[in-house]
């Protein structure tokens, strides 16, 4: 509608302050990407222990370490993105509970605590540390439960960014969960070198289906988004046609979703583990690109 108005009025801004720059930059992309891996591997460990207990038992400790590393990357980049990082403690001493940032920070802190407890129960070091699989598995259940809101809170945060109409859709919640499943299964394919082909192939199915669902949702938003709100339509112009981010958007869709789906299908035909691993690497790289485009484009739109 605005396009017709524009053509009719020839309205041009002739004097104003410059447009705002990017407020949440690539640091936030890394934040989301690392969190998807950190929570996703926990989901996948739970899945493997339920379905392939004998061969996945020795993944308890390495998976926990990978989760700890990536959750710390997530926390580090969250901190790096603050303009006053030394005041981070304000979140714990002056918490404002309507904010998804506050809720997320508290949940992530508890999640980190649970991950360290899991590491404690899965590590073996002389007489000091003894493995306790039963305790690990009990605690893993609660960690998986908490990993769900830790994964989803970013969607809540993005939807609290009322100015960015693109993120207001409930589909963002689904995309966060799909990103965790995709990243978790991809990382597990690379991590679980000693898993049987059947176990790896089932991870490949999770990866392929998550990729397919995420791809369909993004494509639906591309087609139907403009019908929801004028601002969404204007934002999506950045990834359509010759839009500034169109190339990057499609590279992301291919690398994160379409190529992995194709490779996973091929790997099933030839029972090839190396093709499956290639799919996993592409999915992880592509996920960063996809998340980055979706993070940046609503920030390009003038708000006033």
């Amino acid at each position, binding site marked *: 509608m605005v396009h017709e108005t524009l053509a009719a009025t020839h309205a041009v801004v002739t004097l104003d302050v410059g447009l*705002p720059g990017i407020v949440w930059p690539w640091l936030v992309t890394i934040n989301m990407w690392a969190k998807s891996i950190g929570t996703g591997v926990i989901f996948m460990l739970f899945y493997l222990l339920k379905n392939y207990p004998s061969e996945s038992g020795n993944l308890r400790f390495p998976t926990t370490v990978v989760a700890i590393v990536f959750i710390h990357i997530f926390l580090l980049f969250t901190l790096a993105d603050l303009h006053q*990082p030394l005041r981070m403690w304000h979140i714990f001493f002056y918490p404002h509970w309507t904010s998804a940032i506050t809720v997320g920070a508290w949940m992530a802190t508890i999640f980190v605590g649970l991950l360290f407890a899991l590491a404690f129960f899965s590590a073996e070091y002389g007489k000091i540390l003894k493995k306790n699989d039963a305790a690990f598995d009990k605690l893993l259940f609660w960690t998986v439960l908490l990993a769900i809101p830790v994964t989803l809170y970013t969607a809540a945060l993005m939807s609290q960014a009322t100015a960015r109409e693109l993120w207001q859709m409930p589909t963002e919640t689904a995309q966060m969960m799909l990103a965790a499943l995709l990243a978790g299964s991809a990382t597990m394919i690379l991590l679980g070198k000693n898993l049987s082909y059947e176990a790896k192939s089932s991870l490949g199915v999770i990866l392929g289906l998550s990729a397919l669902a995420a791809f369909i949702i993004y494509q639906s938003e591309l087609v139907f988004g403009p019908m929801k709100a004028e601002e969404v339509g204007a934002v999506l112009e950045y990834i359509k046609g010759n839009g500034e981010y169109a190339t990057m958007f499609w590279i992301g869709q291919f690398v994160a979703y379409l190529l992995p789906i194709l490779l996973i299908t091929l790997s099933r035909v030839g029972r090839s583990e190396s093709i499956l691993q290639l799919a996993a690497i592409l999915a992880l790289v592509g996920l960063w690109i996809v998340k980055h485009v979706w993070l940046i484009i609503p920030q390009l739109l003038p708000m*006033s």
Partner: protein
Amino acid sequence: MQLGFLVDLHLCMGCKGCEIACKVENEVPLSTWRLRVKYVDVGVFPETKRTFTPLRCNHCENAPCERICPVSALHYLDNGIVNIDKERCIGCAGCVMACPYGAIYIDPETQTADKCTYCAHRVASSMMPACVVACPVEANIFGDLDDPISNISKYIQSNSDVQVRKPEKGTNPHHYYVGGGNVQLNPLASERVEGYSLFNKLTTKMPVGGHH
């Protein structure tokens, strides 16, 4: 008490006096703006018209910036002002992302969020905001929306074309415009051509978000 603003766009002549008064009063750093006047030209020569629109924080009743702030640095005062405590702010820029009106920016000197406070410090001393005092044509009308005989209430009662920006966002702004059209109030209704920005070549101490 519920303080609010109304700008009569019929009166505004784009002198930018309010902008400068605001900068001086609030020591707003170079390249940042709590309030600015946007010029939009409409039509094709010789049938053209220039419009002027002062833009500042709307002090929304349902403020997304207040909701998203993790440490309550953005908070409501009893008089309805959405105020900012710069000592409390952690600089997460959540508020910059949440404000649908681009009214918040990260101050390049303090690295904290900043925006128009309706000159809360002056209001506390029973003074008018600096921009109201500076306006030579009294286009800025400030007062208590709860008081039916305040200037702003009377203005709202006597004008039929009172509007707010982006009403669909559900923020219930306490900042009104009279005499505004889509071109003035909707940023998507005008084109931005490279090169018509104030100080757009500044490269040092750039703020994040808001207006720069």
